[in-house]
């Protein structure tokens, strides 16, 4: 992804280059937004859901599931963008 961007920015001006290589906005909603909505903002709703899943209260199971799903969200940001960033090398 970054290789493609680099090719397009090479002959152009600084302002344009900046715009082109700007870290994409979707990183924040996917990396932090989704887990935050699912874990924090959804709590009042989930608290009112009764029953159990695999023996855990539903809200507790939901939290446990987000241990894995948070990792999935961060992996998506990493593999789709951050992994290719030059300033992350090293």
């Amino acid at each position: 992804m970054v290789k493609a961007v680099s090719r397009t920015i090479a002959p152009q001006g600084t302002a344009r280059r900046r715009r082109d290589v700007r870290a994409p906005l979707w990183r924040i909603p996917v990396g932090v937004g989704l887990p935050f909505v699912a874990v924090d903002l959804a709590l009042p709703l989930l608290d009112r859901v009764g029953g159990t899943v695999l023996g855990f209260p539903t809200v507790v199971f939901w939290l446990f599931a987000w241990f894995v799903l948070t990792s999935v969200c961060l992996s998506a940001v990493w593999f789709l963008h951050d992994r290719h960033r030059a300033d992350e090398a090293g």
Partner: protein
Amino acid sequence: MATVTFCLVILLSLAIALYSRRGHHHQGSRDFFVASGQFGGVLLFFLAVGETYSIGSVLGFPAGTFSHGTAFVIWFLSYIVLAYPVGYFLNPWIWQAGRDHNAITMADLFRHHFGSRAVEVAMALNAILFLIPFGDLQFTGLLAVLQGFGWPVPTVVITTVAAVTAFFWVALSGIRAPAYVSILKDVMMIVAVVAAGVAALLASGHLPDVRQAGQDIAQIRPTGREEAFAMSTVVLQAIGFCVAPQTIAFLFTGRSRRIVRRNQILMPLYMLMFPFLYWVADYARRSGMPLHAPNDAFMAVSLALLPGWMDGLVAAACALSALVVLAGICLAIGPLVSHNLLHGLSDRQQRYGAQIVIAVYLLFSIVSAAHASGVMIKFNTMYYFGVTQVAPGIFAILAARAVSPAAVVAGLVAGDLLSVGLYLGDIDLGGINPGLVGLVTNAAILWGGSRLLPSRALVPILRRDEMPRQ
């Protein structure tokens, strides 16, 4: 047999601490405190998770779940799991700021950016003040574990041996010792937690259904006020988790931004040990086993359900959890005094000065564990109120905002006083965490201070992501 297993594990930890010294016999203060920023992904990962999951997690989570049900589970787990996404974005920037300023401690960032000794001292004092109860808590947890063995040894002997062990690790090779020992500690802790959890789950099958008798954790539901508290606490602590002085010091041990960021992806998976601890709490509650205190739940279930040799392993894992965190806290406090508060010391003096500070801190923690634990527990409740107050200043640094040093100190003091005052005064704002109220006030003061001065002609670290490839 349990005693033999326990002693073997502790001896192994000492051997690992000795091994960590290999090739670093003549450490400068930078190497002693932050390993010269040389840690790769594995060591940084184990140092970070090793210092996160203290004896408070292993004993405290089952205890809290046992006593308060889902209301406790929600806030305790939510803030940790959300701290990792916050850290994924924030930690690499903080690491970069540390590299730019050649920083050893969080207070160094403030000194360099704001150019003010007063700001540096204020940040160092704030960090030390709110870190003080941690030592006491580790000793208290350690005693709770070891008393389960019924060893005829006075508690002061146990805490002294623990303090000497932690000091020995630190004096040997600084931050390298807890980082290396963390690998053993985390492997042991996962084995212990999984073993206790599986044993509790299997044994639960033989228990009668007690849901109608109010013995079921799932029946303890949070109130509306508790929900508001949980939601606001999650925000405060997810931020505080990332800007705590010891977290920042550990970040500076990392070799690159890439390593710092990549580690955050795996860290939520480490939390998969909590379902096992939940099963332990569930079994303790449903079986109605007699406990002196809720903190005994984990050890009581382990002693009841696991074979003798495993008991020693579980206790050793808990003891290592306490000692690793203790060593980490010592290494956070030491340089805050010898490097930030006492200016002008040579490199060698900073290192030895920190060791003296660490010895005094350990001694203080032993005394407070014996005589003032109640006070320390109350103090510990306020930990996040204080450590999170550096967050607005950190953001100002990352955004390269010029802020009047007076505004930074005023914001910090106002945030601290308001949070602590609301808490100690028992003033309820609909369940909203007092620390969050203090944080917002602090940020508002800082923002006001930034309006008074023009922006610096620097590229903010927050915008470095957007720079073209060189």
